[in-house]
């Protein structure tokens, strides 16, 4: 199947004919079975090049740019730092290292409000020039051969602070630390990018195809898997053609076009679509022999493994309906750049109702614009006033749209009601802990009920209840 795409594409991967597009659509029928919705794709920045954003004069680097406990600052006021130097050390299991994104002097270590408005520990650096740490290879050459062993690659993931750049920012090295009885068969690379507006992965694939592939190869060594499959939605024909063309040079990497359906890029749904396996309730993907990683994560893994370069940059799509299409851009930003500067570079439209960090389905509205860019901030979206307001919440009609939309086979209307009534034991019984918080239920609700919001409250409370119960045992 994969052979047919480059044949049609010819030598030039970027030349996409109508036939190829329809062919990819035909090939990419694979998807998950249950639920899912079809939001408008609105990929305005699909063909925009990645633009390097000017270096900030001051960078505010949060110590919590990942899922888990905050890193511990290892620099103090007045210290000189170089780009890529360790400034926050991971001292607990669920944690990732943080590195200096600019060179200069540490101004102070302080509590700075993040996008939610809550204060988080952060290191503030005043920029002087742009001097990189000596251990980092800053040449643009592509290094093909991987010299590191499995253990060394996992150690490099940890030391370079690699986190999943799909949005959740899960520390990557934890996924690869397998128990002896666990065995990874498939490495699944998530390039689905099913959230509307975001085009970061698409552009990273097109501009850094070979690097992504080498990153996947490194991840294959780290996981011990025999085969890697790149799952990509069929609305990105250029990227699919480029990947298939490049995959020829690599022996065990396969490209699998997928149907356009949200949430195609969710871990469990992607595994179902590609391998046909279902991850059991409450289990991790490794229980069915899979590790799932985002493609941009693979690119930063390449940089970490081959160039010893930690994550100091974020790739951020700036898009939205209310800004002109040519202004929709993808920025390569240093971490700690002020969000306000980024937004001003595009120009905040008059009728902006809210600005979202992440996609419109799962992203978070920014409550505090005086915050700073962190790892995994894949997009900043402008929503106009009309789009950003919810409709008036009306009573539930029992129409069942949320039940058909739920990709986990849950009953969101019921979970909403139970969570509202604080009946958390019943919530557990109805499988609230399986909710992936994708937002399909709220999206499909004709009564504009805040289903996923309430379910998230219930999920947090039920989780706390289960943990307390297990601790008591």
């Amino acid at each position: 199947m994969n052979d047919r795409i480059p044949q049609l594409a010819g030598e030039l991967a970027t030349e996409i004919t109508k036939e190829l597009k329809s062919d990819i659509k035909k090939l990419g029928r694979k998807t998950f079975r249950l639920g899912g919705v079809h939001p408008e794709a609105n990929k305005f920045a699909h063909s925009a090049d990645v633009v390097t954003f000017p270096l900030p004069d001051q960078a505010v680097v949060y110590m919590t740019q990942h899922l888990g406990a905050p890193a511990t600052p290892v620099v103090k006021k007045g210290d000189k730092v170089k780009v890529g130097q360790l400034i926050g050390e991971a001292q607990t299991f669920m944690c990732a290292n943080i590195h200096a994104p600019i060179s200069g002097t540490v101004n102070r270590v302080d509590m700075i409000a993040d996008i939610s408005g809550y204060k988080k520990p952060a290191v503030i650096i005043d920029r002087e020039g742009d001097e990189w740490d000596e251990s980092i290879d800053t040449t643009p050459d592509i290094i093909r051969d991987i010299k590191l062993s499995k253990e060394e690659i996992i150690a490099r993931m940890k030391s370079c602070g690699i986190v999943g750049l799909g949005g959740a920012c899960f520390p990557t090295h934890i996924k690869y630390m397998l128990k002896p009885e666990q065995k990874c068969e498939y490495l699944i690379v998530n390039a689905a990018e099913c959230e509307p507006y975001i085009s970061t992965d698409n552009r990273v694939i097109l501009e850094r195809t070979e690097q992504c592939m080498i990153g996947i190869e490194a991840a294959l060594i780290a996981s011990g898997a025999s085969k890697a499959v790149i799952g990509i939605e069929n609305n990105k024909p250029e990227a699919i053609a480029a990947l298939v063309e490049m995959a020829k040079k690599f022996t065990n990497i396969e490209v699998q076009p997928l149907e356009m359906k949200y949430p195609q890029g969710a871990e469990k749904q992607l595994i179902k679509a590609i391998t046909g396996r279902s991850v059991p309730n409450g289990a991790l993907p490794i229980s069915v022999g899979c590790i799932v990683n985002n493609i941009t994560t693979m690119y930063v893994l390449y940089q970490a493994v081959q160039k010893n370069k930690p994550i100091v940059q974020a790739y951020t799509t700036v898009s939205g309906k209310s800004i002109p299409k040519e202004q929709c851009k993808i920025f390569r930003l240093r971490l700690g750049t002020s969000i306000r500067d980024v937004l001003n570079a595009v120009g905040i439209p008059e009728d902006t109702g809210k600005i979202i960090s992440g996609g419109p389905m799962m992203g978070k509205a920014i409550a505090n614009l005086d915050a700073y860019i962190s790892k995994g901030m894949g997009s900043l979206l402008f929503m106009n006033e009309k789009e950003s307001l919810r409709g008036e919440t009306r009573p539930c009609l029992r129409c069942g749209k949320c039940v058909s939309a739920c990709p986990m086979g849950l009953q969101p209307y019921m979970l909403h009601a139970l969570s509202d009534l604080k009946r958390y034991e019943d919530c557990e019984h109805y499988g609230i802990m399986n909710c992936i918080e994708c937002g399909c239920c709220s999206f499909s609700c004709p009564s504009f009920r805040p289903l996923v919001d309430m379910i998230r409250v219930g999920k947090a409370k039920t989780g706390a209840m289960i943990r307390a119960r297990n601790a008591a045992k």
Partner: protein
Amino acid sequence: MATTTIFYAALTIGLIGIIAAVILYFVSKIFHVEEDPRIDAVQACLPGANCGGCGFAGCRAMAEAMVSSMDLKIAYCPGGDYDKIGEILGIKAEARDPQVCVVRCNGTCENAPSKVHYDSAMTCAFANSLYAGESACPFGCLGCGDCVAACSFDAIHINPETHLPEVDEDKCVGCKACAKACPRGVLEIRNKGKNNRRVYVACNNKEKGAVARKNCTAACIGCGKCAKTCPFEAITVTDNLAYIDFEKCKACRKCVAECPTGAIHAVNFPEKKAPVAVETTAPETAKTNANPVES
């Protein structure tokens, strides 16, 4: 024919009834449970809302515990008639100060203007997990009304003008249900005080003064003036936030006049001594006596 059918049917049912009655009589004799009649009497002295504020499963459970232990201190129900319970059990009830809920936030729309608009599930638990709040104060009231939902006595309501909860002192029994429901600990249960007069700090912000003032003009800035003024050493300042110990406070109101932001509230004092009236003078004092920099 029909009459005999009716006769036999009535006879059968009647016989079954008599046999069942005899069995039930003996069963009730064998499995008889001796129950203290005082439990019912004590239960009648409790409010009957089954709020769980005392720590027991409900009013009946608390009554049972009191009767079996013969100890009134086992649990405290602010709505309970302790004198009567003491009479029933034949022990002397100790006097307890009645308690009431106070709202430790004065972030009204005027004092703490909204910077963002919240448009999601109306529950403080979710709002608290999402963001710092409409006024960007990470310690203040979110105004979604989890406390209102938690109250069994209909004693707390959100004022639509200030977006802050208001406590109906006559209905509030101090059961702490609202304080438990509040994700930010804005609500505190304090002694009602003599003649219902009490003084408290209406702020929960533990940030440094300048930061707190940025979001709310009525915030406690932790300057410590009140603590210095207090003749009874009732006020302590920890984490940039003043706290008045209601056991030590004699309601002299010296601190109220001293507070530069009007964060200390004195309620139910007679109107005559005008300068200490609560909300009306607070913003003006804030402007004139502003103490922008501290620690």
